[in-house]
């Protein structure tokens, strides 16, 4: 309701958490955080914490096999303790939709044709939700796929752009998502300059939309650079040992 809506842009033009409109939250990335998975990654965007694991390419039930390519199986799931109120562990309609859009984002970069009849399984668990969980999840999934050594056309960085109190801002947190005018999750393969995930939940003029895509691309490029650095570090460490 508008009467109980908090102010999202302060007197000084900064956001509720002190960021400038074009600032990302502090982002942490780590790969190879799980022993059993073929690849894994932990990603934090501010208070949002997500872990992703990749199993495969591995054998898959006959019924879902495809003769000319691997199938991707993706599950985006929120832990029951990840939100302020307890969330039932059963998959919601939202989680089913997000699993689909994240799978489709990864389909655009994974060389699935190299593994006919196999499956590549990506499991994303949101441990704590503070806005941008699907985009942090996409970043984590992309890192985990790279960590698993799955061949890809490019890495994918996810970031959500929003509109709050009339201002287009980068990497919205939960409060900005809940009370803002728009939430636009973007998945961007920055190395090849292609959009692999794009949704808009909210209202934007065509000019604002253009600006939001631009801002999202610039933000994704910064996250992409950090992803590369994270992977470099891992492999340099392997070389040195």
């Amino acid at each position, binding site marked *: 309701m508008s009467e109980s809506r908090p102010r999202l842009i302060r007197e000084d033009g900064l956001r509720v958490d002190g960021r400038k409109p074009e600032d990302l939250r502090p982002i942490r990335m780590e790969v190879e955080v799980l022993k059993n998975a073929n690849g894994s990654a932990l990603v934090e965007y501010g208070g949002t914490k997500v872990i992703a694991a990749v199993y495969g390419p591995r054998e898959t039930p006959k019924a879902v096999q495809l003769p000319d390519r691997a199938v991707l199986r993706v599950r985006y799931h929120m832990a029951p303790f990840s939100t302020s109120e307890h969330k039932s562990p059963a998959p919601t309609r939202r989680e*089913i939709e997000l699993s689909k859009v994240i799978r489709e984002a990864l389909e655009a970069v994974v060389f699935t044709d190299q593994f006919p009849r196999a499956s590549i399984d990506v499991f994303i668990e949101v441990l704590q939700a503070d806005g941008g969980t699907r985009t942090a999840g996409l970043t984590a999934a992309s890192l985990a796929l790279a960590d698993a050594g799955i061949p890809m056309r490019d890495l994918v960085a996810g970031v959500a752009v929003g509109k709050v109190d009339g201002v287009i801002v980068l990497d919205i947190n939960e409060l900005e998502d809940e009370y803002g005018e728009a939430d636009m999750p973007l998945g961007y393969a920055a190395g090849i300059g292609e959009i*692999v995930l794009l949704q808009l939940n909210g209202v934007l003029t065509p000019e604002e939309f253009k600006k939001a895509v631009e801002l999202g691309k610039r933000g994704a490029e910064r996250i992409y650079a950090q992803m590369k650095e994270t992977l470099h570090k891992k492999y340099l460490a392997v070389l040195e040992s």
Partner: protein
Amino acid sequence: MSITPQREPIMPKLRAENIIKMLKKGERVDNRGLYDYRSISVSIGIIGKAEGSALVKLGGTQVIAGVKAELGSPYEDRPNEGVLQVHAEFVPLASPSFEPGPPNEDAIEVARVIDRSLREPRAIELSKLIVQPGRLAWVIYDDVYVIDHDGNILDAGMIASMIALAVTKLPKLEISGESVKINREVKETPLPLNTLVTTVTMGVLGDILVVDPSLEEESVLDTFISISVDEKGRIVGLQKKGLKSITPKTLDSAVEIALKKGEQVLSFIRKVISSPQEYMKW
């Protein structure tokens, strides 16, 4: 879990290649231009028991939207608003590839995109659907029922929903003291609307955009983008779908096309709801 689906329907390779070849020349197998919709026909009020209904035929695709109004509790965090719920059913009679059972990810996606496209621009003024603040409100169910699938279910479902909601008449409320009863014998109050909304769905083939893809086109195109627009020319929703990416440049063209085509679809919807009696036959 979301799993890469099989391509449906399975099509002879020659046919598929021909569709692609023609699209690259700016032609389509059904002789449409790249940005043309198939013909749209509408029947209103075909379900007398519903508070509002519309059957939309978009080429060979047929979708019924039925609107029911019930009394219920408002959401805890929206004590002064009525409730809108959108659901979509891909029933098995509509296509050989639809199975019975709870809605799959495609049906859920269609329902959620329609829901967001209506909710975000406040197409329905939910604050006028409260009966007793915090306690009792109108709950509006918009059920999208696909009965024949020939591609672009989303746009057909969106247009059907928008028309069904626009022609909906709420039943009379009989209030005596604490008790509130619905009298469905008398349906009189239209839903309070702020704007009409539609989606414009396009297939993406590299930098070529194809408006209102048919089922055949859907099965050879890998990527789609649906852009929701309202009467003020704003973008009120967007969903990229499918297996491939889209470049920022193609996205710009898609927005431009969606604004233009959306305006045409919206004026068609306006025409239908301004003279409903002309569309009351099936």
